[in-house]
């Protein structure tokens, strides 16, 4: 039963930096827009959930606290890395379902525009005892998966390039996206190699910005335009990638945590045939290979059929539309990215996505990924509450 609806969405543009805005101003900008969209003042908000991930990227340890809004509201900060934005949404929904709140404001802020050595920061996510000495970065860790996918299922560099180019072209219709590059798969393949098989144009940008949403109990929806949260689930895998390589039935590229989350979210939402019932999928895929791992985990196709599924996207209009916003390859404000995926899915369902609007979106799915695809979240939003 859906109790919770998204009735307000606010996003700042995502850019390399916003030098004219303090961190709190970015938070307020998104929050104010969400509140206006919802037709609510801050006084109507019962609880605030803040999502901010790596402090070292902002260079401020309690940057969320600067965005304190209203007077005397419960305020708590979640930090689950890449899934932070979705964790904040799920936590907000819990407070409503627990009847401790009727209206919750959730926000996520990424302030990495203040970082000048972000790659070193990302490197500190890895185990200082056993792994720090190796070039494990967000890029090489994706590359390790991409090569495994190529060995197992026959993906080629061309497939990675097609996904990247598709996302880039979609981002051009999204004024909020960071990158608006008119690139083709050939451009991607020609761009410098970062770590085989990943080329520069496949990597996501380092973006900063804020996203906010207003969630309400069903009794408060009234005349507002809702996107109902029909299903939401989060699962954490083990840390060590090496522990997943030979795991039976769920190797490194099988994205077990994502498929487990999808199963639970789909069950709550009543989704039984994802490829037919999901019109839009906003995926937290910072790299093309991450998108490829998501397809089977989300039940859109089998792993072996993945390459054909990528090829079919160009011609088969019955397939779900992936990342109409441009996805993380268009803008990746890390702390916010998972919330942005839900926000974009909500905008699609509410028919408020502007030039990037897809027709007839009854249901959309948004995913979140954190760590080395250790954390996975799935959120199904729909135009109607599920019964």
């Amino acid at each position, binding site marked *: 039963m859906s109790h919770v609806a998204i009735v307000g969405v606010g996003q700042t543009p995502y850019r390399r930096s916003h030098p004219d805005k303090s961190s709190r101003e970015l938070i307020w900008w998104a929050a104010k827009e969400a509140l206006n969209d919802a037709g609510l003042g801050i006084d109507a908000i019962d609880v605030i959930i803040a999502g901010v991930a790596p*402090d070292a990227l902002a260079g401020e340890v309690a940057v969320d606290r600067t965005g304190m809004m209203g007077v005397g509201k419960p305020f*708590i900060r979640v930090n689950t890395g890449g899934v932070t934005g979705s964790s904040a949404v799920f936590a907000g929904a819990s407070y409503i379902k627990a009847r401790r709140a009727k209206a919750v404001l959730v926000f996520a802020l990424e302030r990495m525009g203040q970082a000048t050595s972000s790659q070193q920061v990302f490197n500190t996510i890895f185990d200082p005892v056993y792994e720090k000495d190796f070039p494990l970065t967000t890029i090489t860790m994706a590359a390790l998966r991409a090569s495994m996918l190529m060995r197992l299922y026959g993906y080629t560099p061309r497939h990675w390039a097609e996904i990247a180019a598709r996302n880039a072209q979609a981002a051009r219709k999204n004024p909020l996206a960071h990158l608006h590059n008119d690139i083709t798969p050939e451009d991607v393949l020609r761009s410098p190699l970062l770590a085989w098989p990943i080329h520069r144009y496949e990597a996501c940008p380092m973006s900063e910005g804020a996203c906010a949403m207003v969630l309400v109990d069903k009794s408060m929806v009234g005349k507002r335009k809702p996107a109902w949260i029909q299903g939401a689930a989060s699962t954490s895998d083990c840390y060590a990638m090496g522990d997943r390589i030979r795991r039976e039935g769920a190797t490194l590229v099988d994205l077990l945590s994502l498929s487990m989350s999808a199963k639970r979210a789909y069950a709550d939402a009543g989704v039984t045939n994802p490829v037919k019932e999901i019109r839009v999928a906003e995926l937290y895929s910072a790299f093309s290979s991450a998108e490829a791992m998501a397809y089977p985990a989300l039940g859109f196709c089998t792993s072996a059929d993945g390459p054909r599924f990528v090829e079919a996207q160009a011609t088969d209009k019955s397939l779900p539309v992936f990342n109409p916003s441009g996805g993380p390859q268009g803008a990746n404000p890390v702390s916010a990215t998972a919330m942005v995926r839900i926000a974009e899915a909500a905008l699609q369902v509410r028919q408020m996505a502007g030039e990037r609007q897809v027709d007839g979106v009854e249901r959309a799915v948004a995913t979140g990924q954190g760590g080395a695809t250790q954390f996975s979240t799935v959120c199904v939003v729909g135009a109607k509450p599920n019964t």
Partner: protein
Amino acid sequence: MTDKRPDVYIEGIAIDIGWADATRSLTELIFSTTRRAIDDGGKSLDTVDSVVLAAHDMVDGRSLSSMVTGPAAGAYLRDETRYSDDGAAAFAAAVTRIEAGESTRSIVAAWARASEHDVEAVARATFDSFFAGPFGIDELQAAAMRAQAWIRLGGDVAARADAAQRRANAARANPRALKAGGRSPVASYPLKEADMPRFADVAVSLTISAEPSAVRVAGVGQSSEPYWLGDRKLGRLAGLEQAAQRALQEAGFGPAQLDVVEIDGLTLFDEAIGLEAVGMAASGTGLKFLANDPRSNPSGGAAAGYCAPAMGLARIVEAVMQLQGRAGAIQVPRARRALATGSCVVAAQTHTVVVLEAT
């Protein structure tokens, strides 16, 4: 589907306060504490469907530290969320999940090792770079200013030495307190050495569920204060007052009915001001209350070992031990109702209050 919100109970608990134990890595410390809490609860790990954590990257020294620490706290293939907030706030979030029907049994864990990180440096970094940071202010100095504001408003310091003494005695008698090592930070006026916390390595874990057991969560309240210290009335903790009112209202009784109060405070003065905030002591009399009243921080509070952001959960565990009759040498006789608090950055900006009842 019933309309009544399910009650939430605390089952297993464990706490580990130590110092620089080189035999255990951070994840091993978290694992051993969580394992003990699961065993203490007597329920199979298979029935746990949620893990809610409180920890901070800058304290743990790793970005996204929950990647390595989450699994140590039982997160493998479970729904796990890590809050970079105080342990009591994570506890509140975990309670909402059960009340929402999303979870039936949850692990809640919090940790911080003062011996592994530079506590003062991280605390300085919580203040903004433009208006406060340039003066090198940290949490202890903010607490000193709060103490000074409280004194100026008429706070009675006469019982200060007695309060510090009682606290030190309690910490010595508390079986769970830090036994050796630890570090006391430098005190800034008007605070003195005896007012300081004892920095330690703290790991706390517990399990909660909708299944009835010895201790019930009677009420939860949360609140917050403005970001800028200059926007707050520093001599009191208005946010804690509000959080306590909410929690006690939900529980259906007042502070006079409490048998034990465990206040999370960085310094002795914060503990005293906290006692006033939750309604146990009249305004200005917090230190006197702390010096004389056996209900207040029987654990020894921050003198028993302190490291943010674990302390709200540590206060909850001490309160639970009292209600279960397992507190040992510091047991408050016939404790049936307890209140525990947890406060977090910046300089006690956000607060969580939990009221517990023995069933």
